[in-house]
């Protein structure tokens, strides 16, 4: 894990640190957007092997273009567009090579479909929430992670056990942690 101070840095500041040669900043950037980038090809119905290739390609492209990103505050938008472009490129390439059935789906998806746009804006929203969860204090981060992100979802008894909390305090602690989370989200413009 990169040091926690990267969690509160804006994308533009992390990019500056990358350009200064800080490998931890690069790792922080990848951890921040790993799910966003990896999930896009899967949303298109591409297989995991393609998602792996696309994931690598997008990070290589970012590495090449880091210094000339015009608007660093819109890194998320750049990543989404670049990933979608890679999905199309790789789908076309593989189709020419193997003509497998894997890529029938992507070719039947109209890329300007508004429902598809909803999928991407929702992915950005999920990314924003995960980033906010990372910025919580460790107790709240653990609790929210166990409550919402753990699969299979543990029971309140199990959570009380893991976090060493009285069973009766899970509910109120959950409410307090969600309040903190919403405070962070509010400050990042989440609606």
């Amino acid at each position: 894990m990169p040091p926690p101070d990267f969690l509160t840095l804006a994308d533009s500041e992390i990019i500056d640190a990358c350009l200064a040669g800080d490998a931890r900043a690069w790792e922080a950037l990848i951890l921040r957007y790993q799910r966003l980038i990896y999930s896009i090809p899967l949303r298109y119905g591409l297989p995991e092997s393609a998602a792996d290739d696309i994931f690598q390609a997008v990070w290589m492209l970012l590495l090449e273009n880091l210094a000339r990103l015009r608007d660093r505050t819109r890194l998320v938008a750049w990543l989404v567009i670049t990933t979608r472009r890679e999905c199309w490129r790789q789908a076309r390439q593989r189709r020419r090579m193997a003509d497998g059935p894997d890529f029938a789906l992507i070719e039947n998806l109209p890329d300007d479909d508004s429902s598809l746009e909803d999928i991407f804006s929702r992915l950005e929203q999920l990314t924003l929430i995960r980033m906010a969860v990372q910025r919580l204090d460790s107790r709240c981060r653990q609790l929210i992670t166990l409550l919402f992100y753990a699969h299979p979802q543990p029971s309140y008894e199990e959570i009380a056990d893991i976090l060493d909390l009285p069973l009766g305090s899970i509910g109120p602690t959950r409410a307090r942690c969600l309040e903190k989370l919403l405070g962070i989200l509010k400050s990042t413009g989440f609606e």
Partner: protein
Amino acid sequence: MTHPSFASLLDYVEDSLPREARAAIDEHLAGPCSQCSVELSRIRAALGALANDDTVAPPEETLRRAVAAFRARPAAPPRVRIAAMLVFDNYRQSPLAAVRGPAARARQLLFTAEGLDIDLQIHFAEGGATLVGQILGGEQPSIVRLHRAGEVIDDVGADSFGRFAFRPVPLGNYDLVIESDSREVAIEGLEIHDAG
């Protein structure tokens, strides 16, 4: 007006309030209270997203390769420096330009360097000059730096038409360096002197 606590709004969204408490919040919202309405919809959106996050993390090995790419990245090739050549100077073209009075006090210069033309105008004012220019051709984006005695004293970005402008600078000798990703084009020994 007292607004319901966050915990109450959360319970409201999760439908775990007793009937009377729920009615009280309904009444408050009907007030209307836009602040609480916005807060409620934000809580709803966040809970919905938290409960339905179906994003997928890449396998450990995929992640590791992307992280490792940073150390393996090729070092940026050193920038090539090219000296620009003066091809036009209205002061030299017409020796009278300098003495034609305030209307003609702008000096116009045109430089050229491998595939790049740089149009410069120097406007003189009290004790200094403004420098306005346009880069024609070449790769974008460019940063233009003004050096004096080996130090950068100002830098500006060229716009999408290649135009740039510096704040008034004191009279003196400068180097103007146009930097893009792969190279820098230098106008060396630019004399900003009012020839009048």
